[in-house]
């Protein structure tokens, strides 16, 4: 825990980066997705552990780059922040190629969040899983 306590602030249990993404989440989907807005969607998590996240992706068919990425999360502060951070990562520099984005690990997300309390790692960093499911969904749809 010691390394993730925010030393500058008032000992918030999370880093400033987590706090920023939690209080001001980026790229979340407000309202219901409209027909044609996205190519595919994916979900991860369950009620038992208390975190569920859903992601929607829009892919450039030629370059296979991620043109748009939206998400929604039901969960704790770190779950919200981790999904928000993931969205920022895949949309950086005009959108990451799917293959590149699939290589993002929970550890990468945690590093960008300046760390998470250890007990939060397992249950709240599920954005990469939800994204993998969305890519699978995208490829299945493409086959048809």
């Amino acid at each position, binding site marked *: 825990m010691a390394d993730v306590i925010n030393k500058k602030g008032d000992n918030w249990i999370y880093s400033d980066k987590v706090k920023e993404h939690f209080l001001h989440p980026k790229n*979340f989907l407000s309202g219901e997705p409209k027909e044609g807005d996205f190519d595919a969607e994916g*979900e991860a998590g369950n009620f038992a552990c208390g975190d569920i*996240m859903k992601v929607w992706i829009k892919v450039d068919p030629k370059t296979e780059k991620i043109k748009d990425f939206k998400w929604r999360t*039901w*969960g*704790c502060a770190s779950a*919200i922040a981790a999904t928000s951070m993931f969205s920022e990562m895949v949309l950086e520099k005009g959108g990451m190629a799917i293959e590149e984005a699939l290589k993002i690990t929970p550890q990468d997300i945690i590093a960008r969040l300046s760390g998470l309390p250890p007990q939060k790692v397992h249950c709240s960093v599920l954005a990469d899983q939800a994204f993998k499911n969305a890519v699978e969904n995208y490829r299945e749809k493409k086959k048809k």
Partner: protein
Amino acid sequence: MDKRIYMDHAATTYLDERVKDAMEPYWIEKFGNPSALYKEGREARQALESAREDVAKMISARTEEIIFTGGGTESNNLAIFGVVGAVKALRPRPLGNSVSLRTDETGNSTETEISARAGRADSDADSKPGKLEPLMLPHIITTKFEHHAVLGPCEVLEKNGFAVTYLKVGEDGIVDPKDIENALRPETILVSIMYANNEVGTIQPITEIAKIIKNQKLFFHTDACQAAGYLDLNVEKLGVDLMTVNGSKMYGPKGIGFLYAKRGVKLKPFLYGGGQERKLRPGTENVPAIVGLAEALKIAQAEREKESARVAELRDYFIKRILDEIPKTFLNGHPEKRLPNNINISILGVEGESVVLYLDEYGIACSTGSACTSESFEPSHVILALGKPRAYAHGSIRFSLGKRNTKKDIDYTVETLKVVVEKLRSISAVSIKNNTN
């Protein structure tokens, strides 16, 4: 946000100024060790014994029935391990032998014929020559939604071969006394039922339970930590043998509490040393905290009726506003048979930790039964014990009111909560329409 609205009094309270004043002389001026013979020691001893008298008076007990401890957790541990330890020492005896649970007024054991209460004849198999008689394993009855300071000791005892029955509580968070009656066994030695639940505030029928088990040769313990500020602590009326109270929930100091143990209740200590507190809790007495505890209890009991009426009105207003103005919210626990300061609501479609942290940003302090805030990753065992789905536990928020809270605070909190819930629901992956899981 500079102003803070503190609504987590069930977690702990600030010190009452009068309590602080009462404690003041005992830090530097009258600092003596109560065991010492000289003036400083006598002053401390006098403060200690006067506090004990005050506490005893408040709960209609005798002074020798009050054991000061390091708080609620310690009192609960002393009650459970203490009773069990006194019996366990006599455990490896065959059925039919007597065990001693109590002492008489002069401290001699009064023997209890367990076999007389057993009501079960030894089976043929057991009475064959060369076979050992079966041992009576002491049995404890408690509830599924006790505080961890009771459940923890019970779980340890279970691992050591004791039998523990964890009673269900109804949907309204109240134990049915009949369930206790049905769970009684000849070898039941202890029933431990909290006076008021710490999460949902529901008040348990302690007097009724006491009547049911009155003629049984067992002890009845109640954890009254949450009740102390609002309910009657008269042990005669309650009919309990052991009662836990601590200072930190009733505007007293932290790290101090007491265990009421009725005369004749035999306890085995788990600390050994200088013999203080009738050898049941050795160690130099925490005189300032004990003085503070007594003062806090005096104030709490003197003001409880007035303060209960005041906060109950706020509570009902608070609950009504949330249920009326925020969709998909549900009150946990009985609407009336609950502590006057407790509000516990499940908000579907959001997760508790997120709500708590957002409200904190807006200057409001409250708590949640979400798994995310527990070390065990398990959502509130209390909400689950009410038979609610896990999503209700993950989305449960507890507000516990106190002396400083006003109607204005509640209005601000409700308005803020509406904004926070709306925001979190807008980013939530769970549709609240079909969220029944």
